[in-house]
């Protein structure tokens, strides 16, 4: 079963075409990695999946992106879409409020008021993001006091708290040290049983370690999309081979 | 909701329109009745004479003299203080001096007025000089603050470039940084001028307020602002209109100053 079906997707920033004729789909309960050199459009593609690109002035999209069969650029409320498709950013971006309020922000946004339900959501998401033990004694303290790695896991917990179907991650470990990175990779492998995950990464080892499918992008085009094993062991395209073997920008 | 925020933003525009409407609406008829030339160039202000005379040239002159005096005293000190704050001051001293300059800007006009009455008037009488000195001090922090940010905005490599050519610290600051920041420094002076022309309470308390053409800076003088406050309490009919028209003259002058300022600011960015 596919969570995302992307057909003939083109995207322009003003006159610049950032994505050209993308056709791909992402399967449920798998980790899909998007790789490629800087400026290849992989982050842009990620942003089209929860319409964060709406915030960029002059951005125009053609083609279709379907989430479980529904066109997200059609008659869909963008806030509902973002509830179903969570996102974690490159730099951890906890809000300047307590750990508890950070996690509770999403559920509160979507109408959860009961104290009990919020407590439960906070505890469950923090546990799911494997950070509960580290923060359970300081839920009321500012989230800005956490370390970078903890902040990023907090942001993952925050995304999980709204019970999304898909989790988008935009180079979530690029600002972190190796130990924090390892923890987050471990976490993602656990989360994939319950969520479909799409991750943009610069780090090819990371893609091989955690992803099931990998798509390689170059200059706004999707060059190759296959199982991770195939992409890294016997790529079909010369350019993919150059990139994954490190002979390329 | 966007519309609500937009309406809030339009409040400023509405306020400016209302101010123009009410000031011009109440002042211009009196201005026309008196005669624009007689009003602006008339040397006699005698509202209780029969027939009354409404010439505000003495007040225009008064405002200009006092402002000029304040600028002559305040500008050099203000700019040099800005240079000191931006380029010379040791950090430990800055922690005290900068809040001090801010405080100087925050002291209310009346407090300046009280100070002037007791510290300046006994030496210089109620005169242009007293008002000029007091106003010079009052506009000093405004100018120093704006000029300081202009000096800080000059790219560091200008300074380094000057040093690399063998210039000393002060030479680099005065010959390279200060000229590079001249638009911002000029904006600071223009702003100070606007403040000086518009200042009311402190001036009333030390300038003497005689409505006559002054012959020397040791004589008392009445400014446009003082004219309004002094007589508005009991003025009626045409006299009242003439005072509002005085406000119109002041307002137009300030609008011109603002125009200069925004032109300068556009040049800076």
């Amino acid at each position, binding site marked *: 079963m596919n969570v995302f079906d992307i057909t003939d997707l083109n995207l322009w920033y003003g006159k610049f075409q950032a994505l050209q004729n993308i056709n791909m789909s992402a399967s449920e309960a798998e980790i899909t990695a998007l790789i490629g050199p800087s400026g290849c459009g992989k982050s842009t593609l990620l942003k089209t999946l929860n319409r*964060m690109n709406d915030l960029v002035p002059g951005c125009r999209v053609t083609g279709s992106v379907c989430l479980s069969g529904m066109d997200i650029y059609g008659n869909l409320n963008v806030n509902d879409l*973002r*509830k179903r498709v969570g996102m974690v*950013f490159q730099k951890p*971006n906890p*809000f*300047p409020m307590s750990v508890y309020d950070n996690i509770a922000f999403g559920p509160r*946004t979507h109408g959860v008021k009961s104290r009990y339900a919020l407590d439960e959501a906070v505890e469950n998401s923090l546990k799911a993001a494997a950070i509960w033990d580290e923060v359970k004694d300081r839920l009321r303290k500012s989230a*800005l006091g956490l370390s970078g790695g903890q902040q990023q896991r907090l942001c993952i917990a*925050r*995304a999980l708290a709204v019970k999304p179907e898909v989790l988008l991650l935009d180079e979530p470990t690029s600002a972190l040290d190796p130990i924090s990175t390892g923890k987050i990779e471990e976490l993602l492998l656990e989360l994939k049983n319950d969520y479909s995950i799409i991750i943009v990464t610069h780090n090819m080892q990371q893609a091989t370690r955690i992803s099931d499918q990998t798509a390689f992008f170059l200059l706004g085009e999707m060059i190759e999309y296959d199982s991770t094993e195939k992409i890294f062991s016997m790529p079909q395209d010369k350019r993919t081979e150059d990139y994954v073997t490190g002979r390329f920008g | 909701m*966007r519309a609500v*925020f937009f309406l*809030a*933003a339009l409040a*400023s*525009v509405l*306020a400016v329109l209302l*101010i123009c409407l*009410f*000031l011009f609406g109440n002042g211009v008829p009196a201005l026309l009745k008196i005669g624009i030339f007689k009003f602006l160039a008339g040397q006699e202000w005698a509202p209780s004479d029969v027939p009354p005379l409404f010439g505000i040239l003495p007040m225009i002159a008064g405002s200009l003299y006092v402002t000029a005096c304040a600028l002559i005293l305040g500008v050099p000190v203000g700019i*040099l*203080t800005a*240079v*000191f704050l931006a380029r010379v001051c040791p950090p430990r001293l800055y922690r005290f*001096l900068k809040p*001090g*300059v*801010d405080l100087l800007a*925050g*002291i*209310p006009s*009346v*407090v300046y*007025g*009280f100070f002037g009455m*007791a*510290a300046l008037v006994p030496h210089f009488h109620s005169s242009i000089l007293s008002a000029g000195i007091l106003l010079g*001090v009052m506009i*000093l*922090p405004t100018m120093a603050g704006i000029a300081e940010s202009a000096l800080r905005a000059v790219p560091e490599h200008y300074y380094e470039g000057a040093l690399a050519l063998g210039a*000393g*610290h*002060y030479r680099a600051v*005065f010959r390279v940084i200060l000229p590079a920041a001249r638009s911002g420094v000029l904006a600071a002076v223009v702003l100070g001028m*606007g*403040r000086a022309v*518009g200042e*009311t*309470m402190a001036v009333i308390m030390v300038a003497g307020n005689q409505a006559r053409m002054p012959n020397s800076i040791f004589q008392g003088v009445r400014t446009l*602002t003082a004219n*309004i406050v002094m007589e*508005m309490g009991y003025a009626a009919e045409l006299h009242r209109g003439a005072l*509002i028209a005085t406000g119109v003259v*002041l*307002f137009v002058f*300030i*609008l011109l*100053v603002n125009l200069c*300022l925004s032109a300068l600011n556009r040049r800076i960015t």
Partner: protein
Amino acid sequence: MKRISPSETFMAAITWAAALLTAGALLYIIGFILWRGVPYITPSLFAPVYNSINVSLLPALVSTVMMAVLSLSFALPLGIGAAVYLAEYARRGNRAVRLIRLAAETLAGIPSIVYGLFGMLFFVVWLGWDFSLLAGSCTLAIMILPLLLRSGEEALLSVPDSYREGSFALGAGKLRTVFRIVLPAAIPGVLAGVVLAVGRIAGETAALIYTAGTVAQIPPDVFASARTLSVHMYALSREGLHTNEGYATAVVLLLVVIGINVIAARIAGKIGGAHERV
């Protein structure tokens, strides 16, 4: 040993002299007011009711607080609303935005006596509010509006975009993002503006004499006349009978202003470090 040229020495001398002069002026003025005023600060100066014997400043102090609260309650919603529009909604270079900025700049440059004239013509005469707390505070509200707008806008612009993205990505709408994430993060900057505005209100005289009047009482309602501390001082200087009490009042006003400046500096210091860890 490095030789220092005479011109270098001269430039150093005039720069230090100017700074010394500025610091000296500040210390002299404050010292002078304290010296003249402190001996006359007596308990009777704080009597609950003003009369020409005790020259109490308490009614004026209470009126100043009421004036500040009332002016801010009018101006703050408008200023913050306008700041939100400019920082969060408006497109750059849009014609309405340029008009709004021009209007705000114009307001910022208008002298207080012109505000006083306008307040008298509009609120006092045209709307028939007479000399009153309400007319005075409405006049001051317009006067502090550009200050609140500018500090509010700067505070909003200094909130990192990553907060907004984080909120949108959780499915929060624009309005929820503004009120729950962006504005709370901008509170220190907004507060700094509010404190400065309170300073302007406490020090204002010319805009109030012909809008709020000069009755020395604690106003029973917003339609009654009231004199703030600054106006009170001006009235004392005009009468010429209570100059010493005038200086004592000046001490109190000065302490209020210094207090306000210290608070503003504290807040500004906090803002500097607020978003660093993000």
